[in-house]
């Protein structure tokens, strides 16, 4: 098996990459099943008592007519997401939008959950140790983070939100993880950890027994907490995540077995050789934090498979490992080689798709999976009623290299508008974009053939040919129809970028 050859083949220039292997998403007619009724919506009868007090504070926000990719597996076309005081209260096609609500029309655009960067640095300014007191919500890096779709992130051991212009409610969760060392290169640390875990696990067993019996037997004494590591106790109780840094196969197996023995789910940063032991990691219920573009040769001294693989994410996912994706550089890097820093989070996920990871899993890898690692999945990571209204309105597929975040919404407030900020406003301006999203078709995606012309005609005053693309869609291919080309001339910015939605063309 020439793994080496395979890798050679895969290392083709980035410029030729077509990142998106568009998987079939749910058929439109399935939408009805996913309409969600607001759990937290005010009930008609209750109003009078509390209404007067609350009315002043109520802030409504609605994103209307967007194609909503909820991140839970469904695509809801032409839906409105309604939020009250920053929390989603309704997702439906017909919504009574309250008076005074801020409305963002996302017609022809896609709505995704805000991305979650499992780790980053610098996006909130300040220091992670005292983020609440030092956050700089006007930091240009925060703006770049939002421009790339990141609305929540882990900083150190704090989970935080990118709330532009606000310092309250920034910290979502403190101390979500404990970093542990368990490496074959460091036997004493291994021994140490096992000893501590033994003590802690024993205490926890005794404590639970005590909890169960104390009601009936009042003579029982609470077990002594002496020697118990509080951080490990939190891990074993499932309150925080145990985090490891490991790439090598031996370490990964060791961590998987340790986790199974003590009954916790490990988060493994790196996990480069994970694909060789994916079954072990899957059984351990591990989370893997991957950088699909990282490359590492296998040790030539070993016969076994090893080294990095572009299929890593796909193989781990297939074995039940929860995959989160993070670019190689955790901060915003405006020098060196572009495209490997935190503001290319969706691009990095695109590489995992290239290696076979399903599209939905790739989106989960930058939304709900990192949210679970950060322990904030009850608030962010998907578009669901009752969750925070952190949304991205995009002009195309989230993982496509050409797609831009058009609007970012955090806690029901619009905090980014591509046209209003200087960074990307000049690239394919929204008003003159040749890439009318309706005519851009992803491979395998079902499109209502009647929908496209209706929207296109009035919008661009475009030619009748433009209505045709959906019909000429080539099954399985990445290409969009040639009819789009006539549209190019009016656009003069950047010859290369102007080639519209042609994928791999």
């Amino acid at each position, binding site marked *: 098996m020439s793994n080496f050859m395979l890798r050679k083949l895969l290392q083709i220039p980035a410029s030729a990459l077509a990142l998106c292997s568009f998987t079939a998403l749910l058929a439109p007619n399935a939408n009805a099943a996913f309409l969600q009724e607001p759990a937290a919506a005010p009930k008609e009868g209750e109003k009078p008592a509390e209404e007067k007090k609350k009315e002043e504070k109520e802030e409504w926000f609605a994103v209307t007519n967007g194609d909503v990719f909820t991140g839970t597996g469904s695509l809801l076309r032409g839906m409105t997401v309604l939020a009250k005081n920053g929390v989603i209260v309704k997702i439906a096609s017909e919504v009574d939008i309250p008076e005074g609500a801020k409305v963002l029309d996302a017609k022809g655009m896609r709505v995704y959950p805000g991305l979650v960067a499992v780790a980053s640095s610098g996006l909130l300014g300040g220091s992670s140790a005292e983020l609440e007191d030092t956050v700089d919500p*006007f930091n240009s890096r925060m703006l770049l983070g939002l421009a790339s779709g990141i609305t929540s992130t882990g900083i150190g051991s704090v989970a935080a939100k990118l709330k532009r212009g606000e310092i309250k409610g920034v910290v979502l969760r403190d101390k979500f993880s404990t970093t542990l060392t368990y490496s074959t290169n460091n036997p004493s640390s291994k021994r140490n950890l096992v000893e501590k875990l033994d003590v802690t696990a024993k205490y926890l067993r005794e404590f639970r027994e005590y909890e169960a019996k104390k009601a009936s037997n009042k003579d029982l004494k609470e077990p002594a907490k002496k020697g118990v590591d509080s951080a490990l106790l939190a891990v074993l109780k499932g309150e925080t995540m145990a985090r490891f840094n490991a790439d090598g196969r031996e370490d990964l197996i060791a961590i998987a077995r340790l986790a199974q023995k003590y009954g916790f789910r490990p988060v493994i940063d790196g996990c480069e050789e994970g694909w060789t032991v994916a079954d072990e990691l899957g059984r351990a219920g591990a989370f893997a934090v991957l950088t699909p573009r990282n490359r590492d040769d296998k040790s030539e001294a070993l016969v076994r498979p090893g080294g990095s693989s572009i299929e890593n994410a796909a193989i781990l996912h297939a074995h039940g490992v929860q995959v989160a994706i993070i670019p190689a550089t955790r901060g915003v890097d405006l020098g060196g080689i572009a495209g490997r820093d935190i503001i290319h989070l969706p691009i990095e996920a695109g590489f995992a798709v290239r290696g076979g990871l399903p599209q939905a899993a790739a989106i989960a890898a930058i939304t709900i999976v990192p949210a679970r690692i950060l322990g904030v999945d009850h608030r962010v990571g998907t578009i669901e009623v009752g969750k925070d209204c952190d949304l991205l309105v995009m002009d195309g597929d989230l993982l496509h290299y050409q797609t831009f975040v058009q609007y970012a919404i955090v806690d029901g407030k619009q905090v980014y508008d591509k046209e209003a900020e200087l960074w990307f406003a000049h690239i394919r301006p929204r008003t003159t974009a040749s890439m009318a999203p309706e005519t851009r078709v992803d491979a395998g995606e079902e499109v209502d053939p009647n929908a496209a012309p209706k929207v296109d005609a009035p919008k661009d005053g475009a030619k009748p040919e433009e209505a045709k693309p959906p019909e000429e869609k080539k099954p399985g291919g990445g290409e969009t129809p040639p009819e789009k080309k006539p549209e190019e001339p009016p656009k003069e910015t950047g010859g290369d970028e102007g080639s519209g939605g042609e994928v791999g063309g």
Partner: protein
Amino acid sequence: MKTLNAIVLAAFPALCSAAALPDLVAIKVGRAETVSHGVIEHAVILVEDGKIVTIGQDLPIERGIRVIDLESWIAMPGLVNPYSRIGLDSRAGDEFNPQISAFDDLYPTGEDYDKLLEYGVTTLGLYPAGRAVPGRAVVVRPGPDTAEAMLVARDAYLKVYFRSDSRSKKMVKDAFAKVDEYLEKEKKAKEKFDKEASGKKPEAKPEEKKPDEKAPAQDGEKKEEKKDDKAKKAYVPAEPDDKVKPFLDIVNGKLNALISIGQAADFLHLMDAIGERKLSFDLRIPMTREIDIYEVEKQIGERKCRIVMEPEITLTPGTMRMRNLAQEFSAAGSKIVFLPRGDTLTAHKTWLRNVGEVVAQGLPREIALRALTLEPAELMGVGARLGSLDKNKDANMVFLNGDPFEPGTKIMAVMLEGRIVFGEVAQ
């Protein structure tokens, strides 16, 4: 004209025999920038004992009064720099010392102060150095040889250095929490005092009404014990701790707070630390090239903060788009106080010209003039005494050979409290 004449005569009967008074002098200038009430062409400014006695257009001057004819010049109030450490050493701590006054640092000899007069600066606010809360600033006049002679007013403002970090926030929270603690304690003490005081009046009655009321019986006994030592005195609040008092004065509006912040986020954190408290304070914001303070200019404007800033045109971060923040802040409702671009003599020398650059970029002229004179004076609590060309104010004046903000204009003479301290004036 006649009525004006009459007023002059009526208001100052001494004028009739003015010839005898050597320090009564009438200054005729081509134009006077009063700052407080616009421009007066062909102004006559009557000065006596270092104060402006009156000012008006073409006032008739009684015979015998000495006249200084400066018809080709323009007069404006002396410049006021409220935020300087010129002439002080650069020792700086990092401590919470609101009780310290910059007056203790004052070291009056030094040519720097004479140079300042030459550049038109007639009032200086010297602040204590250091981070955290270094102490209170002092208002001085440059020139005299002793600290006492330099002193115009103490307690100009309390300087607070605030940045987005836990330490700064805790410092501010704690400082005001101590004020609350003190006020709470005083409130209770006063209540107790009042109770005791008011208890005396019914004191005779409870004895009669004993069968009707149960509790007063005990109270009555207590009051009887104390009735001798507490006569009809008014309640005297306890003196607060000297580290608490400046903040108490701020809460009561007796002392200004000048809070130094460095970026927009600092303001939000400051607001967070202050909480619901209704305080008025002013902000010192150093104008760095790409400062992002405009992000909160609306909120700052709503709080009516004065902005103490350098006359600089800054850039929108990441761009070459220029911003006139002074103009933006003033439009948002804040009042502007200009400082020289640096705390050096050279910067004072080019001060007017630098402000001229900001005026050329769109800042209204009258706001710029005020930002150099009356506004800093009000910031330091001496606005009633100096900062504009008004009756009864100190005769601090700068005489220029043209418009203050025109590039070629020179300072021809400077008057400090009625004395010409710089320039040749034919008398």
